[in-house]
């Protein structure tokens, strides 16, 4: 009798555990969506609305069309974003990358920028990723203060090389992407 009892308790516990975990996972994901995703969507929607209805889009298009639809132009964007003094300023929350990404997306959608440039563009707008966060990120990895002192400039200088390089790699990887429907 007690064996059956134990089995029932065991099954009940593990099922309860799994259901509880799934429920908690759902709660977490809805929480993330409400706190982080929807506010950004609202903000981005406003910007897109502004671009599409006013003339702002036209001069952005002119500015971006020249630079974002050629390899040298994309390289220029990536070099500017990777300059060690500028990259930490562009980093926080990836807000700049998200806005520029959205602007480029609008222009790609209108056909002003060729679709295959979407891949190199994703790298061109983002060589500054995490540059604002280096000391915190290293502290999360329990790095010594001396490592942080060396690590911050090391990462920033590395980006000057790897930022443009990533655009070149992405450019060659984009061959055959959305070229024929």
């Amino acid at each position: 009798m007690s064996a059956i009892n134990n089995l029932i308790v065991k099954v009940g516990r593990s099922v309860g555990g799994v259901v509880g975990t799934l429920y908690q996972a759902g709660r977490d994901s809805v929480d993330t969506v409400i706190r982080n995703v929807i506010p950004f969507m609202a903000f981005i929607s406003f910007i897109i609305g502004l671009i599409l209805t006013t003339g702002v889009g036209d001069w952005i298009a002119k500015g971006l069309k020249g630079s974002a639809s050629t390899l040298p132009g994309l390289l220029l964007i990536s070099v500017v974003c990777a300059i060690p003094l500028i990259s930490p300023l562009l980093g926080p929350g990836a807000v700049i990358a998200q806005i520029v990404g959205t602007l480029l997306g609008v222009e790609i959608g209108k056909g002003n920028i060729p679709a295959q440039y979407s891949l190199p563009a994703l790298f061109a707008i983002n060589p500054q990723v995490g540059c604002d966060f280096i000391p915190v990120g290293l502290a999360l990895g329990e790095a010594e203060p001396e490592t942080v002192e060396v690590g911050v400039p090391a990462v920033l200088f590395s980006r000057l090389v790897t930022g443009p390089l990533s655009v070149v790699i992405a450019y060659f990887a984009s061959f055959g992407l959305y070229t024929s429907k």
Partner: protein
Amino acid sequence: MFLSADVTVDKQDGFLGVLATAAEDFIAVFNKGGEVLLSLMGGILPTLIVLLTAVNALVRLIGPEKIENLGKAAARPGLQWYPVRYIVLPFVAVFVLTNPMAYTMGRFLPERFKPAFYDSAVSFVHPILGIFPHANPGELFVYVGIATGIQQLGYGLGDLAVRYMLVGLVVIFIRGIVTEAITARMMKKGA
């Protein structure tokens, strides 16, 4: 009602006309914004919530502490551990621990690898978004912004998402190696 069909009203001019046009233009911006918001929320949000839930549950059931052994393996010196340190470990860390907790995996590495690992891991929080948006939902629009344009053209996103992630893996590998080399030189200079 039926009269309005054949009666056309001229656009009002004068002061009131200007005001009316301005008001229409003003509200048009927000109508368009609202349309975009609705399409975004109807398009990617439901999928995102379900996916987030599934992955969160998976990570909870497996337990994040399981990946610690991988961190210890990645700390080993030698050429064959480079791909583990700068491709496998960042990928697993970002997938399981997500941004920003992924960087805590650096604690298993010796000091000289820490900046390079951080560089590698942080550079992967966006390329992973195309396929696994749970890893960094707060910064989704780095990818989704551009992806929306592709969608408007009527293309599928799979190709872009896969290529973005694969190129991302190559880039974080190179970043890890370059930053490790720069860190080594700077540490030598400082000592």
